[in-house]
């Protein structure tokens, strides 16, 4: 290596950038990492998820995180926004600005990113059912600030399949929803080359109770499904696959998690090359974001969650993540306070700058146990792919649709969640502070409370915008949208961008689409 900077241990021992045998990090199938130099060349992005109250409130938190050394933004929207409902919808009562920021119109989005240069930060937006609408708003905000679409850097979660399987924030039925996903992929492929149009997410599958191997398998199967959908829409795999990214959970079983991350890279590389014909190595390289396991946080003795988060963060880093969100210790109780979020960010900084783990790529590669665990994760995942491939008669996309329709995914996840709960209940599995070591702690935890006036402020704002906009233009834009929605050959992004610009609300745009696509209602599987 001809690096200028020498990497040494704390005691002064110089260390190499990688140890062990081929294939090395940066070489197919990338089990050991997607870059040769890994974190020597570039640290992961420390991306902290934030959002609450009005757009103005969240904008202030964003600026605070950037000042504290965060290097990317990540937006949490409130439930009505996630479900495509306006703040004045009857379903929104009590939920406006509670679990994320409320966005109804382009004006909210303008406030959310006020005084932040969208050409310079990268922004992740966690939204799925109405993802296309929020992306349209982001594009319009940038345009207003004089930033070209092509310069925009960020990630839209836009992973609708896992909503039917786990997180349950769906609006339309699966097929028209996947069409919207493909429209976004086609739009960003053509106009926003630095944008990640889907963050294919295992995080929520795991939080809903799946095992590590199910998280891995369901997520990658969804990834294959999006590849098949985009190919069916006429896109070439090497034109869009380099911009697909992933989002995994990092739970507490340290070596299992590391095995999972390594297996994910190997499986993706092989399937993209061998099954989907990807030749560009960027299509084969699985890039991922990691978040520590929210579900592992305990309401009991919340301070000890800091230790859990540190261990999970370390697993994500040793597993080769490209970006990381560390949960705050108070999140089993409420949205995090600013102090708690700062501690979580500092935890990443300790991993990055004090532990030395960044000096060597894939430091556990070659460990018999870790290599075996990687193989085991892959084996379990391949069994699941085989099941889905059969369900779909040779199409993973059709197999995923079928598994949603017949309740297979939700059943598998609920079984695993119940198994875990019984283990905790019987004492076979110890959770510190919950069923063992229960003395002490928790007395001095200050929780974030959301100003109950948020809903009123937001409702007033929405009413004002509805008053002042040109309602004829809004109606024209919505009519265009529903007529284009009826034609699967038309990409809906231009019509959605037009609609947000004339101040059609998110809920109105969703209604226009719903009138054509219909509404998804889940069968109540227990």
């Amino acid at each position: 290596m001809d690096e200028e900077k020498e990497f040494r241990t704390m005691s002064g021992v110089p260390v190499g950038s990688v140890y062990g045998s081929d294939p090395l990090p940066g070489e197919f199938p990338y089990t050991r990492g997607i870059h040769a130099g890994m974190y020597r060349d570039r640290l992961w992005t420390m991306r902290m998820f934030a959002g609450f109250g009005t757009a103005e409130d969240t904008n202030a938190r964003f600026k605070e995180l950037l000042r504290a050394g965060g290097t990317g933004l990540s937006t949490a929207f409130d439930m009505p926004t996630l479900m495509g409902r306006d703040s004045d919808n009857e379903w929104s009562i009590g939920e406006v600005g509670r679990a994320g920021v409320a966005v109804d119109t382009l004006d909210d989005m303008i406030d959310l990113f006020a005084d932040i240069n969208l050409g310079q930060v990268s922004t992740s937006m966690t939204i799925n059912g109405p993802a296309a609408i929020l992306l349209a708003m982001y594009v319009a905000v940038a345009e207003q600030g004089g930033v070209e679409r092509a310069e925009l850097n960020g990630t839209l979660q836009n992973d609708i399949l896992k909503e039917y399987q786990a997180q349950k924030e769906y609006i339309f039925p699966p097929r028209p929803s996947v069409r919207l996903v493909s429209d976004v992929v086609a739009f960003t492929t053509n106009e926003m080359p630095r944008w990640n149009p889907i963050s294919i997410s295992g995080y929520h599958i795991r939080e809903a109770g799946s095992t590590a191997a199910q998280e891995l398998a369901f997520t990658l199967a969804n990834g294959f499904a999006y590849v098949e959908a985009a190919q069916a829409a006429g896109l070439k795999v090497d034109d869009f696959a380099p911009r697909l990214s992933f989002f995994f959970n990092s739970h507490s079983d340290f070596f299992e998690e590391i095995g999972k991350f390594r297996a994910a890279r190997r499986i993706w590389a092989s399937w993209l090359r061998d099954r989907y014909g990807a030749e560009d190595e960027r299509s084969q390289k699985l890039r991922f974001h990691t978040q520590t396991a929210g579900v592992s946080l305990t309401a009991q003795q919340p301070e000890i969650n800091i230790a859990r988060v540190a261990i999970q963060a370390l697993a994500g880093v040793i597993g080769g993540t490209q970006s990381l969100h560390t949960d705050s210790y108070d999140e089993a109780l409420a949205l995090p306070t600013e102090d708690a979020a700062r501690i979580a960010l500092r935890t990443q900084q300790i991993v990055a700058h004090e532990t030395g783990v960044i000096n060597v790529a894939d430091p556990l590669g070659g460990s018999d146990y870790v290599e075996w665990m990687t193989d085991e994760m892959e084996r379990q995942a391949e069994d699941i792919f085989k099941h889905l491939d059969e369900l779909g008669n040779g199409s993973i996309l059709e197999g995923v649709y079928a598994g949603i329709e017949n309740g297979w995914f939700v059943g598998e996840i609920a079984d695993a969640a119940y198994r875990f709960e019984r283990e905790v209940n019987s004492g076979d599995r110890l959770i510190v502070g919950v069923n063992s070591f229960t003395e002490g702690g928790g007395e001095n935890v200050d929780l974030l409370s959301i100003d109950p006036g948020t809903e009123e402020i937001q409702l007033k704002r929405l009413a004002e915008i509805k008053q002042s906009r040109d309602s004829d233009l809004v109606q024209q834009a919505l009519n265009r949208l529903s007529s284009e929605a009826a034609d699967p050959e038309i990409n809906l992004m231009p019509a959605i961008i037009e609609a947000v610009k004339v101040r059609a609300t998110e809920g109105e745009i969703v209604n226009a689409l719903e009138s054509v696509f219909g509404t998804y209602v889940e069968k109540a599987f227990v």
Partner: protein
Amino acid sequence: MTKNEPIRIVLAKLGLDGHDRGLKVVARMLRDAGMEVVYLGLRQTAEMIVTAVEQEDADVVGISMHNAGHLTLAPLIVNALRDAGLDVPVVVGGIVPESDLEAMAKAGVAGVLGPGASAEDVAACVREAVATRGK
């Protein structure tokens, strides 16, 4: 209700929140504890819950919330059941900070189950809530 009949519980999630892991686990715990579970699932309204309680002749309602909306939504259900003339207690599960417990009790919520409640805690809470009927 005679003493030998199993408790019938309606389980539902209110509002837009889709976190149903806890409610599904609770459904299985209560079944294992010998109760009859009517699982309504996601995005139920007060009216839907009242209708289900009437049709299923349920003894108790369990609602689950993870979205910090419990102070608004739980009283809605309590009042809707009361307005329908039903003496059916409501148990709330999910993330409810300790500082809200008093307000929940005042709103007429019969029991609150937090994260980490064991199967025994869950069944006991439901039985205690049912025991308050007619009082």
